[in-house]
C-alpha cells in the first residue's frame, strides 16, 4: 500500500465499517434469539416434516360430497357478496376521510385526526377487527361488512389522500380564481384530477376485499371461512383442500378481473 494510492471502496449505506459489522451482528443475534425463543430445535422441525408428509396424504385428493359442494358454493357467494357491499360502503366512508387527510387541502388538526384514523385501521389485522365486530353486531355477514368497510377505509383513504396531495394545485387555483365556492373548488378543481386513480384503487381494493372475505368467517363474520374452520375441526382434510381450491380459484378470478380493469384504465 503505497502512500496516496487511490483505492476504491464499494459504496455502502454505513458510515463506518465497524458500524456495518455491528449491525450485521445485531441482526444475526436477533434471529438467534428468535429461534431460541420459539424453540425451533432441528429435531422438532424434522418431526414436524415427518408428520407433514403423512398428513399431506390426507389432504389429497380434494373431495366433497354433493351436499358439501352446495355448501361451498353458497358460502362462497356470501363471501363475494360481503366483498361487493363492503367495497362500496368502504369507499363511501373513505372519500371524505381521504379529503380531510390530504395535507394540501385540509386544515392541520383535521389532517392529523384523519391520519390517526387511517393508521388505526391499517394497524389491526382483519381478523382482529372481525372478532370485535362479531361481538358488537353479532355473528353473520353484517360483522363481515363492518370489518371490511373498516379495513377498506385505512387503505383507500391513505392512497387516495396521497393522490390528492400529488395533484396540480394550479388547476385548483384557477377554479378558485374564477370565483367558485369551496365545494365547487373540490368538485371542479380536485375531483377531475383524481377520478382515474379512484377507479383503479376501487377495483384493487375490491380484489383485496374478496381475499379478506374468504377468511373472516373463521371468527364468525360470514362467508366461506366458517366452513373451512368446521372442516378443520372435524379432521375432514379432503373437504378442507376442496374448500382451499375453491378459495384459490375465486381469488385468482378476482385478481384477473382487477388486473384487466386496472390496465384498461391506466
Amino acid at each position, binding site marked *: 500500500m503505497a502512500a496516496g494510492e487511490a483505492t476504491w471502496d464499494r459504496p455502502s*449505506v454505513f458510515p463506518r465499517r465497524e458500524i456495518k459489522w455491528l449491525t450485521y451482528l445485531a441482526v444475526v443475534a*436477533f*434471529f438467534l*434469539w*428468535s*429461534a431460541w*425463543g*420459539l*424453540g*425451533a430445535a432441528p429435531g*422438532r*422441525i424434522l418431526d*414436524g416434516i415427518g*408428520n*407433514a408428509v403423512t*398428513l399431506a396424504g390426507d389432504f389429497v385428493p380434494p373431495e366433497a360430497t354433493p351436499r358439501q359442494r352446495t355448501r361451498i358454493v353458497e358460502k362462497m*357467494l*356470501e363471501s*363475494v*357478496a*360481503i366483498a*361487493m*357491499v363492503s367495497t*362500496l360502503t368502504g369507499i363511501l366512508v373513505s372519500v371524505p376521510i381521504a379529503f380531510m387527510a390530504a395535507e394540501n387541502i385540509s386544515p392541520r388538526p383535521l389532517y392529523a385526526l384523519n391520519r390517526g384514523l387511517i*393508521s*388505526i385501521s391499517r*394497524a*389491526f*389485522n382483519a*381478523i*382482529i377487527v372481525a*372478532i*370485535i365486530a362479531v*361481538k*358488537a*353486531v353479532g355473528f353473520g*355477514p*353484517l360483522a363481515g*361488512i*363492518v370489518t371490511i368497510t373498516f379495513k377498506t377505509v385505512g387503505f383507500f383513504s391513505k392512497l387516495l389522500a396521497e393522490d390528492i396531495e400529488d395533484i396540480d394545485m394550479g388547476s385548483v387555483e384557477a377554479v378558485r380564481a374564477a370565483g367558485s365556492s369551496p365545494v365547487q373548488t373540490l368538485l371542479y378543481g380536485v375531483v377531475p384530477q383524481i377520478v382515474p386513480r379512484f377507479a383503479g384503487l376501487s377495483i384493487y381494493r375490491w380484489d383485496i376485499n374478496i*381475499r379478506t372475505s*374468504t*377468511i373472516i368467517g*373463521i*371468527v364468525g363474520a*360470514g362467508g366461506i371461512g366458517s366452513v*373451512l*374452520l368446521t372442516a*378443520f375441526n372435524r379432521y375432514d*382434510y379432503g373437504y378442507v383442500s376442496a374448500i*382451499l381450491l375453491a*378459495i*384459490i380459484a375465486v*381469488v*385468482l378470478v378476482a385478481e384477473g378481473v382487477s388486473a384487466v380493469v386496472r390496465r384498461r384504465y391506466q
Partner: protein
Amino acid sequence: MSTETPTWERFDRRRRLGRFFALLATAVTVLVSWRFLSIEFVALDTVPREVADLLTRMYPPDVAYTPEIVGPLIETVHIAALGTIGAVALAIPVALLAAENTTPNALTYWLGKVLVTVSRSVNTIIWALIFVVMFGAGALPGAIAIAFRSVGFLGKLLGEEIEEIDFGQVEAVRAAGASPVQMLLYGILPQVKPALVGLTVYRWEINIRDSTVLGFVGAGGIGVELFRAIDAFAWRSVSMILIAILGIVVLSELISKQTRGMVR
C-alpha cells in the same frame, strides 16, 4: 346545419356506453349482493350504537395487565422475524424459477409462477391452520405459516427485480469461468441486493401485523392473549392488548420505512 360548431368530448360514444354499462353492472351487483345477504336497513342504526357501547366498555385500558402481555408480544416479534428469514430462504430459489431470464426452461418457469400464486392466494391464517395440524399448536407453526405466506410476495417481487437486471454482468462472470453458484453470488445477487433488503424489511413489517392474529388458530403470539381476553369479555384487557399491538405495528412501520430509505 352546415355551421356545426366543433365540440370537445372526453370520450367517444362507444366508451361512454361502456362506462355507463360498467357502472350499471356494478350497481346491480352490489344491490343483488345486499339482497342476498338479507341484511335489513335497520342495521345502519344498530352498528354505530353497538360499536359505541363496546368502546365505552373498553375504556379505560387495563394498565395493570401490561406485564402479562410482554411475553406474548415478544413471541409475536420472534414469529415475524423467523417467518421472514424462512421466507427469504425459500423465496430466492422460487424467484429464480419465476424470473424469465434465470429460469432453466418453460416448465420451471411455470412451476415458479404456480408456487408464487398458491402462496399468495392462501391467507396466513389458513396456512397457520394447516401447520398447526402438522406441527401441533405453538409458535413454530406460526412462523412456518408466515414463511409460506411470504414466499409468494417475495418470490413475485424479487423475480420481477431479477428480470430487470443487466444480464451482461452475469455473462461476464460466466465468461470468467464461474460455476452456477458463483454466477448467482457475483453476477445476480449484487444487482438485486438493495431490492432484496428493501423487500425483506417491507415484508417483515407486514408479517408483524399478520403474526398478531395467528393465536386465533393456536399458532402463538399475542393473538392467544387477545382471543382469551375477548372470550372472557375482559374488554379493558382487550383494549390494552390492542394498544400494545398498535404500538408494535407503528414501531415496525418506522423501522421499515427508515431501513428502506437507507437502501434505496
